[in-house]
């Protein structure tokens, strides 16, 4: 049971991270800097609890807010560029954060930051945050701002013509995504009890991207499914040891051939919705 709880906890943190990637992605911004924002959240919240004695919840929130502010600042130059150039910019940002962490003596530099108090209810906090994000994204989908995000993501020029404020939409999406990543980092730090710069390298940023692409980019349920599936599948494959990651890689390739839009698409949600309504209808009839 403890094992399943620990895997579920990590999956919960990864769901937050996948959604943090999905948030700017809605406006067409692909960010490889989410691991950097996660690191900011992790370190800031750890400083708050270890050095300043601030309780867990405000410390994690402060980590998220700080990451969000950095995201807002980084979002300004990011407005001018898109596509592969934005990828490079955010990649560079992630590396800057990591190198700063490597050299920052206050947080233990490359040796890492030990002694972070353990939060035994991490599972509840992680899934509590996931629930908040699910409510947030479901409301966002139907809101004016959400439609503006989708419009910017589909065609920036067309969105501008119809009067969408692209600057505020992109900046907001970028900084809210950074805030989510910061929260994820804070929860992660207090579950691990130790953080070091290597935990936030580029591979992790790519992992969050894979969760989203694999799960589906059309709707927020995609990243949630991707993070859950890709955290649990390698654990279930542990029995085959050496061949585990090969099978994992093969699964990704097969999925991308069969369903390039990801496992969960709008069609999946609609089909499930119909199924659910029919079932309810029959039941209530």
């Amino acid at each position, binding site marked *: 049971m403890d094992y399943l709880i620990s895997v579920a906890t990590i999956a919960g943190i990864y769901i937050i991270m996948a959604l943090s990637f999905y948030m700017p992605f809605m406006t067409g911004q692909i960010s490889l800097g989410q691991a950097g924002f996660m690191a900011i959240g992790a370190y800031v919240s750890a400083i708050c609890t270890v050095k300043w004695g601030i309780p867990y919840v405000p410390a994690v929130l402060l980590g998220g807010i700080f990451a969000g502010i950095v995201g807002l600042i980084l979002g300004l130059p990011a407005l001018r560029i898109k596509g592969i150039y934005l990828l490079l910019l955010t990649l560079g940002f992630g590396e800057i954060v990591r190198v700063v962490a490597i050299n920052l003596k206050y947080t233990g530099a490359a040796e*890492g930051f030990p002694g972070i108090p353990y939060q035994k209810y991490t599972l509840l906090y992680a899934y509590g945050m996931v629930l908040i994000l699910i409510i947030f994204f479901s409301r966002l989908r139907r809101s004016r701002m959400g439609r503006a995000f989708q419009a910017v993501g589909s065609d920036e020029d067309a969105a501008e013509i119809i009067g969408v404020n692209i600057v505020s939409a992109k900046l907001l999406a970028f900084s809210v995504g950074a805030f989510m990543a910061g929260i994820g980092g804070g929860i992660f730090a207090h579950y691990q009890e130790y953080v070091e710069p290597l935990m936030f390298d580029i591979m992790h940023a790519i992992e969050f991207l894979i969760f989203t692409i694999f799960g589906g980019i059309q709707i927020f349920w995609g990243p949630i499914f991707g993070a859950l599936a890709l955290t649990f599948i390698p654990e279930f494959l542990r029995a085959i040891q050496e061949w585990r990651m090969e099978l994992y890689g093969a699964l990704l390739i097969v999925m991308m051939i069969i369903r390039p839009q990801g496992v969960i698409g709008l069609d999946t949600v609609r089909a499930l919705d119909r199924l659910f309504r029919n079932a309810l209808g029959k039941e209530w009839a």
Partner: protein
Amino acid sequence: MKRRYFVPIMLVACFLVLGLILASPSQAAKLYGKKVKIGAIYSISGVCAEWGMAAKIGGDIAVEEINAAGGIGGVPIEVTWYDAACKAGPAIPIANKLVSQDKVLVVNGPCQSSICEVIFPKLDRLKLVLVSFCSSKPGLSALSPWGFRNTLTSDKQLDPAVRKWKEKYNIKTAVILYNSEDAVSTVEGKKILPVLFEKYGIKLLKMYTFQTQTLDFSPYMTEIKALNPDGIGIGSCYEQGAKLMIEARRQGIKAMPIGGACNSTPGLIEIGGDAVEGYYGSTAAWIVGNPDPRMVKFLKEFTSRSPGGRMPPYSGPRSYDNMYIIKKIMEEEGVTNKPGDLQKDREKIRKGWEKLTNYPGISGVTTMDEVGDGKGGVMTLVVAGGEFVLK
């Protein structure tokens, strides 16, 4: 008369012998069950895969030998192992799985200090002994009484090496290069070597940092050549240690190198060749060139299993020793292996590791210090004639 006393005397003698057998320690006591479950965390993928693979092969050899000789208390060992991929993240679910699902008695591993940093603070809750076979960052075993390391921390290893290196080459000035991305390398390069240089009167001219991805050391060496130091202190693993020495020799720098445990492995000579001749280093196991017949036998078996017949870093023999120490502790501490005694057995194993003294392994003599780190048996190696020689 003699006949009258013969039968009672023999009866008394028989009772005495029987009493002695019954009162002797539970060394030969048979364990309950069909398998003795031991866990292992070997990172056979990721950046430290070579160390994890060596540990797996070393552990497997020991388990096969033990099982062939009758197992532990007559019961064969069954190892449940997992790949942590040199990352701290997967190590937490793995440790939880070993405790709650696999119900192992003790765990051999993990290797990396960063994984120990994450798991050791949780051991007070998990109540399971983990014994690392290569983590050398100082201070980690103190995080929990359940965390042990059958290795020597970098500070213990490097002191005699620096002293002998200074004496041999009359080192007066030196520079330090270290990998700032790796925790152990940073500790060695930033904290341990500068203190030891000061202790032995060596003037530190300059410190340089590089990253794990650094391949070109020519800019560093161009500057170091102008400084003309007597020695080069290296805080990194062997791949980069060898490469930076190749560049140093290519530029005509004659400074003699010294490095820590991760650098002092057979791979240093394989890559570095003549460039690392005269290198001084510390280690937690003397491997190549060690005449101990047990080590010779181990290496013969190891190289028959390792990819390309490669020699192991010290995680191989240390992991091998770990399995034999676990066997010794289980037999001496009276582990029953009954499912109902699982937690009591784990506690007995913890106490056994705590008081482990002078275990004569193939890696050297192992004694646990007060926090659960190996002590004693510090070895200094020097590269001479293309192989490591004990100094």
